[in-house]
C-alpha cells in the first residue's frame, strides 16, 4: 500500500524558499513528480514535497541575446517538445524528448525533475552540451555532474543551454523496447571544430562526461564506461559512441 506523500503548494518563489527554509531536510522541492515516482518504489518519500509546478519561473523557453536558451525548470517535457522555439533552436532536444517517458508522463514530468532525479535521460544530453543549472538565491549557475544533489537545498529556477553554433549534437537512448522504457544506456555528444564533449549513462550509474580533442584520439576514454557496469552495457555504449562519432568524422572528411 502506497503511503500518500504530503504536498505544499507555495504561492511564489519567495514562499517556496521560505517553506524550504522552515522545513529544512524534511522538505524537498518537487514538480510533476511522475518521473520521480518510479524511484519511490512502493513507498512515497517521507519528506514534505514543496510542489513548484504552479510557480511562475518565467517563460518555458527564452532565447537570450547571447544565443543561449533559458528553459524554465518547471516546464513540462511535452510542452517543451512541442515548443516552436525549441524545434527551431534545439531540434535534437525536441526529437530526443519523444523517447523520454510516454506522452502522459511528459505531460506531468518537468525538465528540472528529469535533470535532478538521478536517472533521467535528459541529464546525459544536457551534460554533453554543458548546460548550466541556475538556482534561486545567489543566482549561481552550476554544471550538471556529481556535485549536483538530487535533492538540492536551493530552488532550481532554470536551465541554460549555451549557444551551440557550428556544433553537432547527437544523442541516443537504448531501452528495452522502442517506446516508454527505462533506459539501459544513454549516450550524447556535442562535437565542435576542435573538441568534443561526450556523456554516457549506463543503467544504475551516474553520468560520466569527458572532453576530448576533435578529431578524436581513439580509443574512447575508459572513464566513460562505469567500472562495474555489465559488460553488455559498456559494449553497447562504446559502439553507440563510436558509431555516431565515426559518422560525424566521415561527414567532416566529406
Amino acid at each position, binding site marked *: *500500500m502506497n503511503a500518500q506523500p504530503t504536498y505544499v503548494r507555495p504561492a511564489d518563489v519567495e514562499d517556496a524558499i521560505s517553506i524550504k527554509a522552515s522545513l529544512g531536510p524534511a522538505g524537498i522541492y518537487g514538480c510533476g513528480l511522475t518521473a520521480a515516482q*518510479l524511484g519511490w518504489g512502493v513507498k512515497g518519500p517521507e519528506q514534505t514535497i514543496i510542489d513548484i509546478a504552479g510557480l511562475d519561473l518565467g517563460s518555458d523557453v527564452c532565447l537570450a541575446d547571447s544565443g543561449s536558451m533559458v528553459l524554465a525548470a518547471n516546464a513540462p517535457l511535452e510542452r517543451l517538445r512541442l515548443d516552436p522555439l525549441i524545434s527551431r533552436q534545439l531540434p535534437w532536444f525536441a526529437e530526443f524528448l519523444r523517447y523520454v517517458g510516454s506522452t502522459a508522463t511528459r505531460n506531468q514530468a518537468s525538465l528540472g525533475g528529469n535533470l535532478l532525479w538521478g536517472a533521467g535521460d535528459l541529464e546525459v544530453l544536457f551534460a554533453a552540451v554543458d548546460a548550466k543549472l541556475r538556482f534561486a538565491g545567489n543566482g549561481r549557475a552550476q554544471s550538471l555532474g556529481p556535485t549536483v544533489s538530487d535533492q538540492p537545498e536551493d530552488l532550481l529556477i532554470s536551465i541554460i543551454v549555451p549557444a551551440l553554433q557550428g556544433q553537432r549534437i547527437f544523442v541516443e537512448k*537504448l531501452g*528495452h*523496447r*522502442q*517506446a*516508454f*522504457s*527505462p533506459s539501459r*544506456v544513454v549516450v550524447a555528444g556535442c562535437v565542435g571544430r576542435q573538441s568534443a564533449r561526450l556523456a554516457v549513462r549506463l543503467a544504475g550509474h551516474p553520468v560520466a562526461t569527458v572532453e576530448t580533442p576533435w578529431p578524436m584520439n581513439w580509443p574512447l576514454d575508459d572513464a566513460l564506461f562505469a567500472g562495474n557496469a*555489465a*559488460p*553488455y552495457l559498456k*559494449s*553497447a555504449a562504446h*559502439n*553507440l559512441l*563510436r*558509431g555516431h562519432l*565515426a559518422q560525424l568524422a566521415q561527414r567532416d572528411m566529406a
Partner: protein
Amino acid sequence: MNAVTGLEEKLRGSFRYLAEGQPVGTLHGALLTSPLAHATIRRLDVSAARSLNGVHAVVTAADVPSDFVMGTAILDRPPLARGKVRFQGEPMAAVAAETQEIANAAIALIAFELEPLPIVSAPGDALNEGAAKLHDSGNLCSSFIYSRGKVDADFEECAHVIDHRLTTPRQVPAAMELEGGICIPSPTGIELRAATHSPFYTRSLIASMLGLPERDVRVIGSPIGGSYGGKEEIHIQPVLALLAWTARRPVRLILDRPQSMAFATTRHPFEIALKIGCDRAGRLLALAADVLVDNGAYASFGPEVLDTGMECIQSAYAFRSVKLRGRLAYTNNGVGGAFRGFGALQTLTAIELAVDILARKAGHDPLTFRRINLAGANDPGPLGQAIIPQPELPKVADALSSLPAWRDETPSQRYLSGTGYALVRKGEGFAGGGPNGASGVLALTLDGQVMFQSSLVEMGQGLETTVRNTLLATFDLDEADIGCATGSTDAGADSGPTSASRGTQIALRLIRAGKMPFLEKLYVGAAEILQVPMDALRLGPGGFYQRMAPQNKPDLSLSDLAASAGEIVTQIGIPGIETMQAGANVHTLFTTCAARARVRIDRWTGQVACTGLDLLPACGPPISPVAFQGQMTGAGAQALGFCLTEHQPYEEGTVMASNFDSYFIPTIADVPDVNVHPVTWLAPDDPVGIRGGGEIGLNAAAPAIANAVASALDAAPTHLPVRPEWVLDALARQGRTP
C-alpha cells in the same frame, strides 16, 4: 455487419469490467499473500483481524472443505494455502470489510509465522534426488513418452544431422483487466460475476466448494478485458465466493498489478533439446526430443500443456521416426498455466529453428525444405492418431512461397536484416476426452428476436460479432431480428470452455446443427397462423413472407409469431470431434498457419526489431474479417514479446518484475504492420468448417521471427527472448561487430 459488443461504451471509455459494477453495500476484499516462495505455515492467527470494527469475514484454508483442491488432470491446488505455501504471492487468507482501508488494515493484523523450506528454482534441480519436495508425490508433475520407428537406425542413415537447444520465456498474460470480480449472495446461493472462459466449469467448482446445488450458483463470466489463457484458470473466484458466502454480503475483490504479476498463471518456460536429421535428398528421417518444463507450484493446465507441446513438436512435417520425452517439474516459480499457444508455441519455435538449421546444412532453401517434408493430407496425426485430413498443407506452403518479395531496405553499416519462415500446425479444441462436445440454444424470444444462447465467452476475439454475422447469413434476417447471449450459465446450455481456439468453431457448428430443426419449428408455427402451406412461406428480414404475394413487409412479423406461438426453442447438441488413444492425449482437428517475418538487427546495440510480418492462417474464410485481422495482429504482437522482450524472471522463488515498468510487453511502436493472407480454401468434404484463429497466428509468427533472427545473424537463438547481449556476442564471434 461488424457490430462490436459495447462499442459505444468502449469508445467513450465508460465500458465496465465485471468487477466494476458493484451494488450498493458491497464489501471490499483483500488478500494476504505469502512473502515466501516455499515455507511451512506454522501459525496463522486471524483473531485480531476478525475483531476489527467493519470486518465482516476473514477466511483461511480452515474455511474450505479439507478435500477441496483445484486442477484439471491433477487436483493439487487449494484456493487458500493449506499447511504450506509453494510460491511467493500464494493467497493465505482473505478479508471482506466495509471499506478497502479497513480490509487492508485487517490484513495487516493477521499474525503468521512461516518456516522457510528449501526453494526449488530450476526444473532440472527439482527432479534431482534429494531436492526438496513441493508435493508429497514428488516434483515430477507429469511426463510424456512416445516413440515411432527406429530412431537410432534412421539417424545412422541420415546424411545431415543437427542438434539444437532452446529455452523459452516465462511470459505473463498481461491482460489489461486484472483478476477480480464481485460475488452477490442470496439466502440460497450466489451470483458470481468474474471473468472466466468456462462459466459452467466455474459453477461446478464453486458449488462443490460451498456445498451448494449447482442450480443455486449463477456465473457471469464475460465480458473479459483480455485473458490469453490467464482467466481460463480458476483465479480468485473461490476466495471471492467464500468471502461473500461467509459475510452474507456482496463482496468485491480485485488484485492489484503486483499481486497479479505474482499470482497469475504464466506461460511455461521450456528447455528443449532437439536432434533431427535428413537424407541427401533433404527428407526428414528422424527426430529425438527431450523437453523439460518449469511448471511452477501447482499442476493447473501443466500436464495438458506438456502433452500439447509434445504433440506439436513435429510441426507439420513427416518424420519417419521419432523419440520424444517430456517432463513437467514442480518448482517454486509461481504457477504455469494455460496461455495462448499452449505448449505448442514453445516446441514449434524450437523445431522450426531446427528445421532451418538443418535445411541450411543440407544445402536447401528453407521453403523448399519445408515443402518436401510436409505431412501428407491423409497421413495419421503426429502421434499416429486418426485426424481430420489436411489437404490444405501444400496450399499453405505454396501461398508462403508466393508472397511478394520484401521491398529492399536501404543498405546500412549499422543494421543487418533477415527473413524467417515457419509453417506449423496445432491441434484445435481439446484432446480426446474433451470437453469437446457442446450445447447451445436457438430461440425465438417473446419479443421476436432469433437468439443464439451459449456459455461461450466473448473476450475481445469477436465471438459475438461472428455469431451475429452468421445468424444474419443463416436466417436471412435483419440486424434487429437477431441476438446473441453468451458468457454465463444463464444460457442453460453448457458449450464448454472458450479455449484452445474452439469458441468460434463451436458456435458456428452449433448454429449449423440447430438451423434446420429451428427453422422447421418457425415455419410450422408461421404456417399455422397464416393458414398456408410451409413451402408457400419464406423467412426474411422482419418475419415471414408469402412467396406468391410478395410485399415490402412481412406477412407475419417475428414478434407476432412469438406472440401467437410463444417462445420457440431448439436445444442443440454437437458431439466432440475427438479421438481416444491409449497412452496419449491426442487431437483430431489440426489448424495450419505459415508466417514470414523480417527483422532488423542493430550491430551497435544488439537490439532486434521486427520490421515485417506476414501471416497465412488456413482457417477457412473469415466470418468477421476485422476481428480475424485483430486476432492475427494481436498474435503477432504477442509473438514479438515471446521472441524479443518478455520474460518474468524468478530468483530463488522471488518474482522479479512486479509491474510493467520492468516487464516489457511490446508497444505499438514495436509492432510492424501484420499482413494477413487468409488461406480460405476448405476441402469440399471438410466435416468441420472454419477453424479458430485464436492461437495459430501466434504459433507461426514466433518461429518465423526467431528464424529471421537466425537468418540475419547466421546463428540460431538458443534462448528466448533474444537478448541483445547474445546478439553482440554472436556478432563478435563472427567478427561482425562494428
